[in-house]
């Protein structure tokens, strides 16, 4: 039973073809995975479905009837609801008020009693057990995500689009979101699930539609596919190896951190990083892994501990101080403090190393261009795009700029939080290779991640974190996925479990 059928949908912006042609079908009560690299046309298609863009040609039928979808309001009336990647929850309002935000059935005057009763119903639907009068901003990220879903469910939509709902969630909470998706499908709603985490496709979806180079591929049953096959479909080529080989030898100790405490890392932690080594800090959101990096780099204040850079005791109180001591920190939230969206790529690349391109305080266009080109080369960023604004780049290219710019400050140690968040598979492999190349050239890299395959594939040594404390230390080659997952989810339970 087809609920929605799209035929030959296309969209161009001026001369730029964003979506060449897309065919798509969605059955009632099915979960359809939607995957593709950034720039493959996936998000353009989704924006057409939810009324944000108008299609240039093609037809979209719901229950056999052609629909226009000229605006978000029309798409909503046609029964298409969207949970955007960026949460649109109002943090200062209560959960219940958020559920009814902009809702047609909302009353002009909402009494506490009415809110409690009505919101409760919708929260039950998504299995969220919180007091509806809790202030939404006080909830953990995963629960806020579920409030968002509850709000969309409350609209009684036939089709629900989820745009990377788990991108920012740790593994535990992802399961809760999956549970909600299964419930929705079981209740006869059709779900389109967009994700960068391919594991989710197999766990959750019935079928999957792959977008590549502005075209859609025919939908496939997930039972007919395996991970490699899916990646091959996305890239159009076989991804022979995602990760480069490990370091063969590492040098002297470059960074030594001992008894370090900072907000979010209550139990003192220690860390030793050698020249040319890549250290992976594994942990979920709030585990202390990210906090350790932020503390070392002076991005957040440290409460206790010693930091030695190349054997010299160093006090770092600000990012500027960290850079001066050869420590760079690349945040995991690149939109927030990673890049200058409306400035050109060149200016982004040279920001941390500004002093190098401004001899006697005067900016040299020649030096600036030279530095930017060389940094672009290091992170395999296309130099033809150096003059583009960062906001026009794909997620993968933005991440290359965000990481690459730190190299301009010539750090000895590069601390990176979530090096591949919101980056597609192809660009991920490139970022891994870049980091390994840099390490081979003598840079030390410490990265924090919640993706287990990333630490296992990339790191020379691994440190695990759980709820604000360090759990264990592994050699990269010896660690097992089972051990890491135990460490970062329930390190205190006995082995027997």
């Amino acid at each position: 039973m087809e609920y929605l059928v799209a035929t030959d949908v296309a969209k161009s912006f001026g001369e730029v073809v964003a979506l060449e042609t897309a065919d798509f079908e969605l059955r009632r009560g099915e979960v359809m995975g939607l995957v593709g690299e950034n720039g493959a046309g996936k998000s353009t298609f989704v924006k057409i479905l939810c009324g944000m863009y108008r299609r240039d040609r093609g037809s979209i039928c719901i229950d056999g009837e052609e629909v226009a979808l000229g605006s978000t309001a029309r798409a909503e009336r046609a029964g298409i609801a969207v949970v955007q990647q960026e949460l649109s929850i109002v943090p200062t309002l209560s959960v219940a008020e958020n559920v009814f935000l902009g809702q047609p059935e909302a009353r002009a005057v909402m009494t506490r009693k009415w809110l409690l009763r009505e919101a409760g119903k919708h929260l039950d639907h998504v299995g969220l057990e919180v007091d509806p009068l809790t202030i939404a901003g006080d909830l953990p990220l995963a629960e806020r995500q579920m409030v968002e879903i509850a709000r969309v469910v409350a609209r009684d939509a036939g089709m629900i689009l989820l745009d990377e709902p788990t991108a920012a969630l740790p593994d535990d909470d992802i399961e809760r979101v999956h549970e909600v998706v299964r419930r929705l499908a079981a209740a006869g709603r059709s779900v389109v699930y967009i994700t960068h985490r391919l594991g989710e496709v197999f766990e959750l979806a019935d079928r999957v539609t792959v977008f590549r180079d502005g075209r859609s591929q025919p939908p496939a049953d997930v039972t007919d596919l395996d991970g490699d096959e899916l990646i091959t479909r996305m890239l159009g080529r076989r991804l022979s190896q995602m990760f480069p080989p490990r370091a063969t030898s590492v040098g002297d100790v470059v960074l030594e951190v001992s008894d370090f405490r900072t907000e979010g890392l209550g139990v003192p932690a220690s860390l030793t990083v050698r020249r040319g080594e890549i250290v992976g800090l594994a942990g979920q959101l709030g585990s202390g892994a990210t906090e350790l990096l932020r503390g070392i780099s002076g991005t957040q204040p440290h409460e206790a501990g010693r930091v030695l850079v190349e054997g010299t005791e160093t006090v770092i109180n600000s990012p500027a101080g960290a850079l001066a001591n050869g420590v760079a920190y690349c945040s995991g939230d690149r939109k927030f403090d990673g890049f200058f969206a409306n400035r050109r790529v060149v200016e982004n690349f040279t920001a941390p190393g500004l002093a190098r391109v401004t001899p006697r305080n005067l900016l040299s266009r020649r030096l600036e261009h030279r530095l930017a080109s060389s940094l672009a080369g290091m992170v395999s960023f296309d130099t033809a795009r150096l003059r583009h604004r960062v906001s026009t780049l794909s997620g993968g290219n933005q991440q290359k700029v965000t990481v690459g710019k730190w190299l301009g400050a010539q750090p000895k140690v590069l601390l990176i939080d979530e090096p591949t968040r919101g980056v597609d598979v192809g660009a991920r492999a490139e970022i891994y290779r870049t980091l390994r190349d840099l390490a081979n050239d003598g840079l030390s890299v410490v990265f924090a991640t919640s993706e287990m395959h990333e630490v296992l594939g990339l790191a020379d040594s691994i440190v695990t974190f759980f709820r604000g404390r360090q759990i264990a230390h592994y050699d990269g080659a010896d660690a097992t996925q089972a051990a890491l997952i135990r460490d970062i989810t329930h390190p205190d339970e006995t082995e027997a479990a």
Partner: protein
Amino acid sequence: MSIEQHPGGPPEPPASAEESSRQEVQQWRELRAQRLAQLRPESWADYRARYLIPTISFLAVVAVIVIGGATTPGFLSQTNMLSIIRIAALTGIMGLGMTFITMSGSFFSLSSAQTGALCSISFAAMITWGWGWPASLIVTLLIAAAVGAVQGAFVAAGANPVVITIAAAAAIIGVPAILTDSRAIIIDTTEAHVIGRSTGFGVPIQTWTFIALIVIAQFVLVRTRFGRAVTLAGANREAAKAAGLPIARIEVWTFTLASITAGIAGIFVAAQSNRGLITNLEATTLEVIAAVLIGGTAIQGGEGSMIRTAFGAMFIVAINSLLVLRGYSPAIRTLVEGLAVVAGVSLFWLARGGAKR
């Protein structure tokens, strides 16, 4: 002389044509070819960003002059034109300083007019004390710098720039109001005429100063480390902090520069009218802000140009003059000014891609 000191166009290749410099020359040829290729816009968005936004304020000035000239006798007369460029110089000079603040992401200083008035009084007083114009000028500008630096320090410490400068405006005007009992300080010599009334090639010195300051300010903005740091701080404050840029120092300096430019305007007013008075430059703050906005500097910072601010100032002053000649009341003029700001800001919003951004 090193090449980075040539601001315009690709500099000459190094004179010593050694083996090593041949590569340099080759590099330069490529860069030049690249620059030529880059002049062609790639898309409508590119065209907008590169050609439309930078010229809006210029086109607005041209439009006012053409319309004014065609409809209003006397608008294009020499006296009126001279008066326009003299007044535009004052608004414009203040606008240049204000643009630094806006570019850095700290919105505006609302104490510009008061700083100007304070400086007009202090300059007039010093002249009457017989200090001579050079000393009076320098000391007055030092006062202006100090007043600006203090406000900048507050903002650097985390205070809201709008709140701080409103409070500062009251304090700045309060002190001289008490000291002078709100009466004008009259300069009864010709000591200040060299600043207030001299001309070069028939053009008032205010305008020459304005032109020189445009060039300097634009150079500082695009060709110095400070200017780039200001731009980046406005483009994304958090990313700038993370990149190790000295945000606090930038705040102090931008507010200091804005205050100094307001001081220069104040000195010109005092020197020209021979009076230091707390109502000098009254209500110019909004005109200055209007000039910055019509010049297309992004209100959240990180995008803008001094030259465009200068045209913004000329636009505001020219339209004002046109309305005066046509006999409209000050109320109407304020209304039109407000509408021009709304229209200008909306136009830039559309030109930048509207709601999509």
